[in-house]
């Protein structure tokens, strides 16, 4: 359902009556009750390391105010931007995860009423609390006086991540002594198996308490504290084959039966208690305002996962060796044909056996907990299987002060300072030994390579071979310190039809890692401080607008910005060593936006275009590398991207009760460079890592001389798209209201969603080993066609060893599709100021279960590698084709949200 109030209010302001505006406010209220705040379900269910949906709450932008919610089912991200490019302020204080640059939406999950007062700005707009990034910004005012006085009880039922919600909010407004108090408490929950995805549960309490004191006509103090302790089970992505075997796109490999009861292996426990103290001062004439904030935030985040050691068999049910397609390469037409299978009946036998096994019983395709307990109990006390908690805790202290001065009706300016210091604490603890008595803290991969009794196998040489019990820290333990400071200023001038704003900021960032364990592979640079990395960045923004009359406005914004790399991408293997990524630089951002906003009678809207160029970004992925048989980090630096496109929103107000709206975007978000790459396996020591990070190709030329090409490791990423969000999204909707009833119907179309690409599959080194590096074989001819290299990827060299062209392996684009959403609401005024609101929203009414929202390629090759004299060459194809088996997420099937709210 679309909230629509801001878009409609913009059009109505000139056309319709006060009564109509009030009606829309009611619609807005109903809508927001249904939305989980303005943050979408997908945001609330994101992992910390996932790119979160950008859902701006834009005050006056008819496009941005709608898309975040309208397209939430597809995890839409505005302009395909990560949440780190969008800022969120609470009472004027930006309090966020400084390691990832992201705001943690789940910290305010379930606090719909407490977070109702918000103001958003787009990239091209200015605010009195700070300078927005390229993704815009929003400010939520949670001061006690801003919560509507009175009480409100809401009860909801739905079939999403949770199935029930109850919220109670009470606010006093100012009393005669100048005090205002507000509080809100809520619960959202779903018992195991009740939510939309099998094997998940949801258990979240949320609270908000606020007090405000008006000291005098110039000074006010405010204190707010909030949090949402949440425990929830996660869904995992799977391959198309697995979804087919399970006969569902909502198959979840993360759970299984334990003693006959369902249990999830991936459970997130999070709690972000936050307290913000605010001092507001204003001059007697109201032209000068100072807002000063001090905030404290302690984030506790733990995500559970199965672990196993030694040669214990991978316990994941969808482990590729368990699948029918592990028997033979079903994507190879020379094998997947009647003759071949007739000649090799054992292959078909085994394929059929596994197919029957998978499809005959749900328990066969889920985690077998009992088996893990059994194995552990047979192992003499030492755990072969265990469940660990991966902790990413943070303690943040933030300070800010903002001075706003309206000089006169034409000129105003703002100055501000923001300080933030964060200690990120990263470690893992033993959650459950699954029937064993202890676990020995050594690295299983290094143990294989160097021997279990070798120093290299030790995760912590300060406590070698430590026996781990439930609750103990093991594996890794380190802190990341990030200190940020920003000074900023902006100036606005308007004169008749002209408006101009200039702003600038200067930022300093210091980061440092502190290892609390001495890792056996990195004895000299794992324990203690890494030394600080310091970055100076800043930017300037200019906005010019022309409004010949209130119905038309053309605006142009230009910015040149830079930002420090995120700390979480800045260390080559942060769990085990202190080394920084090579080539670490501030990211440069150049962005332009042009828009035209209009009202022609009953027809209003906005059209705009944007272009953003990102240079020298840093991205990091981590995965199990079967080539090195170890957990591996792959860091790309020097990442350049270009995001551009058009956005439009139109509204036709046919009558005071009936309106149609159309909004959509067509954008691009492309990588435009082949960034420098670094591979860092956790289980390998420096010599092996150095060998891994060399790229060398030897080509025997026609005269039998050898041409040796050496280069840096790089990822051939040029032309890849940002994945996991629709680059084309359109919605057409109608709204109708009569006699307190509200109806809305939206038809949404999505297209050009791309699979997140695997950098590993596109490493030049991977290409070289896989035979995707080509030299001229006959004059300027190559032994490969252009179509082949465009599909499979490759690098073409000339006879002098210079690169002629590089091709990134083709990226999968998902099929587009439609979804239909609707909502119906009723608002009932009652005596004594009481009211009752009822709203039912239906999403994906046609139950389109084929819409992929995202996914990722597996970081593995399709070929075995043979080594000779230390050089790897491509060997036989593996039976299981990883390149044909990416993992996908699908949009939720039909779902509803029923909310009943009672104000009294």
């Amino acid at each position, binding site marked *: 359902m679309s909230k629509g109030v801001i878009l409609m209010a913009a059009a109505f302001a000139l056309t319709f009556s006060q009564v109509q505006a009030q009606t829309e406010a009611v619609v807005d209220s109903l809508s927001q009750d249904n939305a989980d705040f303005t943050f979408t379900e997908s945001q609330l269910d994101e992992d910390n390391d996932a790119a979160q949906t950008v859902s701006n709450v834009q005050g006056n932008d008819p496009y941005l105010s709608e898309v975040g919610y309208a397209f939430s089912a597809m995890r839409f991200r505005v302009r395909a931007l990560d949440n780190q490019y969008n800022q969120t302020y609470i009472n004027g204080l930006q309090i966020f995860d400084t390691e990832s640059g992201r705001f943690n939406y789940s910290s305010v999950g379930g606090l719909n009423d407490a977070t109702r007062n918000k103001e958003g700005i787009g990239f091209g707009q200015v605010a009195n609390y700070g300078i927005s990034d390229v993704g815009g910004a929003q400010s939520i005012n949670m001061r006690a006086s801003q919560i509507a006085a009175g009480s409100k009880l809401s009860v909801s039922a739905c079939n999403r991540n949770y199935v029930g919600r109850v919220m109670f909010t*009470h606010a006093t407004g100012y009393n005669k002594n100048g005090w205002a108090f507000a509080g809100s408490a809520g619960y959202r929950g779903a018992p195991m198996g009740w939510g939309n995805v099998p094997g998940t549960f949801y*258990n979240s309490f949320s609270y908000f308490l606020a007090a405000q004191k008006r000291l005098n006509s110039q000074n006010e103090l405010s204190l707010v504290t909030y949090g949402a*302790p949440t425990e929830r*089970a996660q869904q995992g992505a799977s391959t198309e084959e697995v979804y087919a075997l399970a006969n569902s796109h909502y198959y979840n490999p993360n759970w299984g039966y*334990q003693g006959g009861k369902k249990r999830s292996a991936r459970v997130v426990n999070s709690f972000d208690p936050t307290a913000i103290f605010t001092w507001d001062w204003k001059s007697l004439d109201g032209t000068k305002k100072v807002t000063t904030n001090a905030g404290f935030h302690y984030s506790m985040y733990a995500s559970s996962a199965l672990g196993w050691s030694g040669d214990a068999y991978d316990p994941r049910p969808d482990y590729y060796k368990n699948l029918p397609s592990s028997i033979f390469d079903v994507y190879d037409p020379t094998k997947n044909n009647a003759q071949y299978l007739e000649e*090799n009946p054992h292959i078909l036998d085994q394929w059929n056996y*596994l197919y029957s096994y998978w499809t005959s019983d749900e328990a066969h395709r889920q985690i077998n907990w009992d088996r893990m307990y*059994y194995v552990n109990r*047979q192992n003499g006390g030492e755990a072969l299987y265990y469940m660990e908690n991966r902790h990413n805790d943070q303690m943040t202290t933030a300070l800010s002060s903002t001075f706003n001065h309206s000089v006169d009706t034409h000129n105003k300016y703002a100055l501000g300072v923001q300080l933030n210091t964060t200690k990120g604490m990263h470690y893992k603890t033993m959650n459950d030994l699954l029937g064993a008595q202890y676990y020995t803290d050594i690295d299983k991969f290094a143990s294989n390579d160097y021997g279990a009794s070798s120093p290299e196998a030790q995760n912590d040489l300060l406590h070698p071979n430590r026996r781990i019990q439930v609750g103990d820290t093991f594996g890794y333990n380190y802190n990341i310190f990030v200190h940020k400071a920003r000074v900023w200023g902006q100036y606005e001038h308007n004169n008749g039809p002209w408006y101009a704003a200039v702003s600038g900021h200067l930022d300093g960032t210091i980061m440092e890692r502190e290892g609390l364990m001495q890792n056996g592979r990195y004895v000299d640079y794992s324990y203690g401080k890494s030394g600080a990395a310091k970055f100076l960045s800043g930017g300037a923004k200019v906005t010019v607008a022309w409004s010949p009359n209130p119905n038309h406005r053309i605006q142009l914004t230009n910015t040149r910005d830079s930002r420090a790399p995120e700390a979480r991408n800045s260390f080559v293997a942060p769990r085990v060593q202190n080394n920084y990524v090579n080539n670490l630089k501030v990211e440069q951002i150049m962005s332009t936006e042009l828009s035209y906003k209009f009202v022609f009678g009953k027809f209003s809207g906005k059209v705009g275009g944007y272009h953003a160029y990102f240079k020298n970004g840093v991205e990091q992925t981590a995965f199990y590398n079967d080539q090195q048989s170890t957990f591996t980090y792959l860091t790309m630096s020097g990442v350049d991207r270009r995001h551009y496109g058009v956005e439009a929103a139109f509204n036709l107000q046919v009558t005071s009760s009936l309106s149609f709206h159309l909004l959509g975007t067509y954008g691009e978000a492309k990588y435009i460079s082949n960034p420098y790459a670094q591979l860092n396996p956790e289980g390998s020591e420096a010599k092996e890592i150095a060998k891994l990070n060399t790229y060398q190709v030897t080509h025997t030329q026609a005269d039998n001389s050898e041409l040796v090409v050496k280069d840096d490791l790089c990822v051939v990423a040029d032309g890849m798209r940002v994945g996991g969000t629709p680059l084309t999204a359109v919605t057409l909707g109608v709204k109708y209201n009569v006699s307190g009833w509200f109806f809305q119907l939206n038809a949404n179309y999505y297209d050009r969603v791309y699979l997140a690409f695997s950098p590993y599959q596109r490493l030049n080194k991977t290409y070289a080993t896989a035979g995707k590096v080509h030299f001229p074989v006959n004059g300027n001819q190559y032994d490969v066609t252009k179509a082949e290299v465009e599909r499979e990827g490759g690098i073409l060299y000339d006879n002098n060893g210079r690169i002629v062209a590089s091709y990134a392996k083709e990226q999968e684009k998902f099929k587009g599709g439609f979804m239909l959403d609707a909502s119906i609401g009723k608002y009932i005024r009652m005596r004594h100021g009481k009211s009752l609101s009822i709203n039912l929203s239906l999403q994906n009414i046609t139950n389109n279960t084929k819409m992929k929202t995202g996914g990722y390629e597996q970081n593995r090759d399709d070929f075995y590698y*043979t080594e000779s004299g230390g050089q790897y060459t491509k060997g036989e194809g593996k039976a299981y084709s990883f390149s044909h088996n990416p993992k996908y997420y699908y949009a939720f099937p039909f779902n509803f949200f029923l909310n009943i709210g009672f104000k009294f």
Partner: protein
Amino acid sequence: MRKIYYFLAMLTGTMALTGCMDNTEEPNTDDFVITSPTSIGETNTTIYQVKKEFSSYMTNNNTDVKVERDLIFEGVVVANDDGGNLYQTLILRDINPKATGDAHDQCIQVGIRNSWLSPYFKRGQRVKINLNGLWVGNYSKVPKIGQPYYTSAGNRRLGPMLFDMCATNIELVGAPNPDAPELTPIDCTQGEGLSWLKDSKNQNPMNAPRLVTVKGKIAEVQGSKVKYADTGELSGEKEPLPKVFAPEALYDAGYAVDRTLLVSGASSLSMTIRTSTQNDISFLPIPDDERSYTGVMTYYSGWQMQLRHKDDIYPAIK
């Protein structure tokens, strides 16, 4: 004031609801098996008879055949993967072992597709196997039960059976007996056993695999060789010194390293000690003195042995 009470009541109520959901009791695994929970049928053959019936598939290198009738035999697990040196492999020995050299005292290799079999098939565990639907043959002249597959080099080989077939084709008989007589290796360190080992008539695949103990010194650490580091053909790297049984640098196409045991009491007889990389035995320093070695002996072009566990070397390596 009343509303504040409402609020506090709500707060308390919602907090009460937020109990931990992720609570599960530890399961009882006393009766847990991955094999058939019911009888798979009466025994109607022995390991010896199976090897005899399918002898051509046992001796012609890398051949196999599917069994399509109920052939059920019993055996005792005498080697598994508990030391990490055997992979996806059990060695079953005929029950009630006879005198040394008795043709009926036979073992056979059983391949099962799982990287850690020892919890389910402990040494001394008697098992019953129904060959119906499985394949018999040999892998590099080692008589074996399993299912065919194609190797990474594209060759068809008799590999492990699907793990889930344990539930239909294998039955555990009783509990593991660590003192089972079948666990006593054939003593080839002296006398009758050593003579049997030296006798060329016995050197054929039909006499493999066997659980034996031999005595001798490792050639690679004798004399000046002890200081000579070999270079791996594949890795291109020199092995570290002092020498260990299976350094990564010397791995071959089978991810293992061969060492030569000079058998004591038989001056012309040597035996290959083959050890896979990445297990507890791999990193053991090679002793230069005479030791006894117990393991699974097979025959290809000569005798070869795989130790089961580092305890199979006596006296133990410190």
